């Protein structure tokens, strides 16, 4: 087990290195940061001078090496746009995204599993069919449109919820939270629905499909034949055995939530790292883009690691496979 973890961590470091390289090579195509840093009265000489100051005139490997050197020491450079250390900016923005992702994630997992189990057990019921169909409408429209429609209905027409932003936040150490204020909680509602809707549907459909399969299998029939109560059968035996693919997908979707937060944050002007990233793309703020990508890489790699380990505990057959070594 320990050897496995060590090997995975080493692999993860390699992954980060590659992501850094890929991300860095991408920036050459995003655009030129110079135009956003200089006003309309700049000359070609001004452009050249600034390019030199930023080190953009250096060769690609040199730039990449410098970036890595800094990143290893936790120094992601200074934002071209804000003129502040990128690490500070990310620390400021991360709580907003993490809180939004957490709320949407929990919402998606709880509702997804609950609806999934329900629709599997009441497979032909009217309510189950209704849930199945209704959930599909939500994922048959692009996220940005759902967000805008929600704003239109609940902010503009009904006036119940705020149209943008996080509301009032409370600072706890370096963490700003929106969980402790009424406006903060209200502000969370629309973005987290927008963000979690797709994941909820995906989890629900997967749970349902896996449950249906498992419920047909012999050991479940035996369990029922032995006279175990339906609830025990459904949850202790059936649900548990549907969890391998479900956990895979949940793990993947946690990452997707962070990635899709880019859209939700743009629509709701939610001050998280996704919005920061989109801003950075618009202004070709290379240090911010690079740091953002590294940050979510670390997160994804971590999630992957955890998912792989959960496999061990949930499906004992895999343990033999793994410890056998390759």
């Amino acid at each position: 087990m320990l050897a496995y973890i060590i090997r995975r961590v080493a692999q993860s470091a390699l992954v980060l290195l590659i992501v850094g390289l890929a991300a860095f090579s991408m920036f050459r195509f995003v655009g030129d940061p110079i135009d956003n840093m200089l006003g309309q009265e700049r000359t070609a000489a001004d452009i050249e001078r600034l390019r030199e100051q930023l080190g953009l005139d250096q060769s690609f490997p040199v730039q990449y090496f410098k970036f890595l050197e800094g990143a290893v020491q936790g120094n992601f450079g200074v934002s071209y746009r804000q003129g502040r250390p990128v690490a500070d900016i990310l620390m400021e923005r991360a709580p907003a995204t993490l809180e939004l992702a957490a709320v949407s994630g929990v919402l998606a997992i709880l509702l997804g599993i609950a609806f999934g189990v329900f629709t599997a057990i009441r497979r032909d019921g009217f309510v189950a069919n209704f849930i199945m169909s209704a959930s599909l409408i939500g994922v048959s429209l692009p996220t940005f449109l759902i967000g805008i429609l929600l704003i239109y209905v609940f902010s503009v027409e009904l006036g119940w919820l705020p149209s943008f932003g996080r509301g009032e936040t409370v600072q706890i150490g370096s963490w700003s939270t929106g969980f402790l204020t009424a406006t903060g909680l209200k502000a969370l509602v629309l973005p987290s629905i927008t963000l979690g809707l797709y994941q909820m549907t995906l989890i629900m459909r997967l749970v349902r499909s896996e449950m249906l399969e498992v419920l047909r299998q012999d050991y479940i029939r035996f369990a029922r034949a032995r006279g175990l109560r339906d609830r025990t059968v459904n949850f202790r035996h059936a649900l548990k055995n549907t969890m391998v693919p479900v956990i895979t997908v949940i793990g993947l979707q946690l990452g997707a939530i962070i990635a899709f937060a880019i859209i939700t944050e743009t629509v709701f002007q939610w001050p998280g790292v996704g919005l920061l990233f989109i801003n950075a793309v618009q202004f070709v703020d290379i240090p911010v883009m690079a740091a953002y990508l590294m940050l979510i890489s670390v997160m994804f790699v971590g999630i992957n690691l955890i998912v792989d380990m959960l496999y061990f505990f949930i499906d004992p057959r895999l343990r033999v496979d793994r410890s056998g070594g390759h």
Partner: protein
Amino acid sequence: MSDMTQKIPQKSRVRLFLDSDIFYAFKRSPVAVASTIVVSILILSALFAPLIAPTNPFDPASLNLMNGFTGPMAPNAFTGETFLLGTDDQGRDVFSTILYGMRVSLFVGVAAVLFAMVLGITLGLISGYVGGWTETIIMRTADVQLTFPSILVAMLIFGVAKGFTPVEYRDQMAIWVLIVAIGLSDWVQFARVVRGATLVEKRKEYVEAARLIGRTPFAIMLRHILPNVLSPVLVIATISLALAIIAEATLSFLGVGAPPTQPSLGTLIRIGQGFLFSGEWWILLFPAVTLLALALSVNLLGDWLRDALNPRLR
């Protein structure tokens, strides 16, 4: 199945299909029949768009800007022309634009999912079955891939492709870039699930048995493991098709979708959402409803297919 065909050679294949359990189940499911009808109508009208559409919205020379913002079935104040579903901000007939846009959306969606599926299943099977360094490399590549949100993948490929494509091919390029970008961001899902299931399946007795009777790994993967992992793959593929169409729309929101001169349904929705508050509802509503109908019926059909194709659920 193949054994059965050999035993009853006198029956034609069509007859066989009509007599099959699947077709029987299909006839009994109103949702499946309805979805099939909707999907067929949409696909056919997209295919034959040039014949059905009153105008060709992709031809800029045929447009009259003064026709812009004409309401459905209401004559334009300047030109007096009337349009079934109204016109958009460029004076394009919304009905024609939807038909042509659906072609783009469907093509991108189907091609992207096929690309993702072939890539994902192949790599998932190999990594699950072979294991070792092959698995490590594939799954770590998947990690890298996952780290890049599809939006970024699209931007990267867009940028690179732009550097290499002559401008006269750029409009077509956008479509291929979208296919590759969406496909590339989707294959990992297939690979992960297939690998996870393969790890479970390959320990089962029937695979051991196949190995003992001397089947090659390739044959085992293809003939024995693949059919058994298809159920989760089908769930993902179903959503993926609808999702790929929607992903294209999302990308167009971020400015890397189909070009506005040759819009997809997604681009139309992106343009239309700008008119949500101003009262020109038809520019948004009709493309959105079409996208909804398309994605929803594909999803419903997929749902039904999955249940029907799975013998254990019958």
